[in-house]
């Protein structure tokens, strides 16, 4: 199972994702802001980041660019209430894109898909 960092400024959503993804067997760490996320990424090893686009005073897309620049092998799934970002160029940097829903199945499927892809890449490297 994987170690995931969930970045969202809504505490209830962090709680919901933590619970749902933990039930799937993942180890879930949460961050309420981009700054906190950067700190946690620097401090620990993560397999994947679930990132909200609209953080309180920050942009999730800016954080995405930073992660891609500094940790290009770190997969990021954008999770957002805005489906319109799907066709935004800066969102294309992400490995996955999920519109927030009360049914977390799509997020879970996307996490599994991206993790499998990452595993495949690692295998190929070896």
């Amino acid at each position, binding site marked *: 199972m994987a170690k995931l960092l969930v970045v969202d400024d809504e505490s209830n959503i962090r709680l919901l994702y933590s619970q749902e993804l933990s039930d799937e067997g993942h180890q879930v760490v949460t961050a309420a802001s981009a700054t906190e996320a950067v700190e946690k990424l620097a401090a620990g090893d993560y397999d994947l980041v679930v990132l909200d686009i609209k953080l309180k005073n920050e942009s999730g897309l800016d954080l995405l660019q930073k992660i891609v620049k500094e940790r290009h092998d770190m997969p990021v799934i954008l999770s957002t*209430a*805005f489906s319109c970002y799907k*066709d935004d160029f800066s969102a294309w940097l992400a490995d996955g894109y999920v519109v*927030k*829903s009360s049914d977390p199945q799509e997020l879970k499927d996307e996490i599994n898909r991206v993790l499998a892809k990452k595993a495949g890449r690692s295998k190929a490297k070896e």
Partner: protein
Amino acid sequence: MDWECCWNKIEVNPEECPFIAEGEEELYTVHKRRVIEKCLECPRMAADLKRSQESGAPFSDIMPLLIAEFQDQKARLNSMGSFLSSKTKEIRFLHELGLVLQTSLGLDEILSTALTAITAGKGFGMNRAFLLMTDKERHCLKGYLGIGPRNYEEAWQIWQEIDQNKASLKAMARNFLETKLSSEKAKFHDILEKLSVPLDDHGHIFNRALSERKPILVTDAFHNPEVPPKLASILGVDTFLVMPLITRNRRIGIIVADNCITHKQITPQDMQSLEIFAFPVAFALERASLYERVQEDLEKLTSANEKLKEQQDIIVRMEKMALVGRITSSIAHSIRNPLMVIGGFARSLLKNIEESDSKRGFLESIVREAKLLEDVLEEVLNYSDSLFPVKDMWDVNLLVSDVCRGLQGEMELHSITCSIEPAPGLPMAYIDYKQIAFCIRSILGNSVNTLANGSAIRIKTVLEGGDVVVEITDTAKDIPSEAMDVMTTPFSATQELGSGSALSMCKAIFDKHGLPFDTVSTADGGRRFILRMPGKKEEA
């Protein structure tokens, strides 16, 4: 002495003077007038005078001299009267012509008046006239209009018509404009074509008339070294008049007039009259040309003004729509997160609750209703996005392949194959990338959900008349056109807002782009969506 003539009688009867004609009966009793009008020219009086001379009567030698002088003066007076009458007639005609020209603004209207005036019997009475106009672009004098008969039969018919119809110049010109102008243009088309002369052919008689600013009367045209032989044979007459139409600083054109049927001589007086006539015609033509240009400019300005107004309306409408869109979007996003949390936690609780628990139904209701509300929100958000298109030039082939790539997983899940036939060399289309991508994704999504596993979708791009067209064909069971209409109407299932189809959004998006969104049935019972997009940017 007995006199043969009645000159010495105050009153006479018809037997006494046979020279008083019918209608002149007054002269029987008006002595003075009878003597002046009849007796002085009467052979009987001449005989009386002769006898008087022979008898040596006083003054009898002077009388013939006085009578001869009187008759000479009378003849001169008559000639002057006739000249005056003809000039009065001419002035009256020119006055009428001037009035008609002053009130005419259209080029054809003026030309009809001018050429009618030249050829009408009450005008200058020429048999035929041609007008050549200066074409600045082609740098030539170009045959524009001809008027008159082409042969004796036609001439006879026209003159009979004119004889029966005593209309004014204005009415004749109006009649010509309305009923004969086009046919006359066509009738003399061959001659008009051949009459055209380059303006730089300075030796040509037409250009000479223009540069010398005076009319030229051409005689013996077939042997005249100053007349090109070709011109004489085109006109088929040996005498014709070339009248320049010149304003203060512009060469408007020339009129060529002749008497091809009657071969009546063209006199210097005719030339002089036509010269007087040519000035107002030239000015009227220049005024018509300026008026035409002003009209064109006015039309351009009016059209620009209308366009500006339309643009203003569009901007105002877009601002309103953008505001509505922003408000809708803001409200929808504010609702979405709490809704997700409510539905998500209810779903989470549902996983851990016994099947027999009485509260399970409540949780299931929360999950179901939350999902329904999320679907409604998705539709509202998509609709508000569609209100605010951002257009640019995009490669539609690339767009189609990107969208298909995004749906690959879902298609594989349903074992649906999707083939793309991109048109080579397809131009960029002027569209909102996100919105058109949404439309294609929605159509493909609808196909995936409608088609049986193992079905196929075919996407083809083509260039049609400058438009980029995307055709998406599937093998879904044919949907009746009424059902298709409902599907493509925003929020069509109003009783259940959430069940509105994404296709309705596509229709709304295409409507906002001002583009058609067509669906047709294919021969094998499938559907074809035809999306047409402009291949180049619309002119602002």
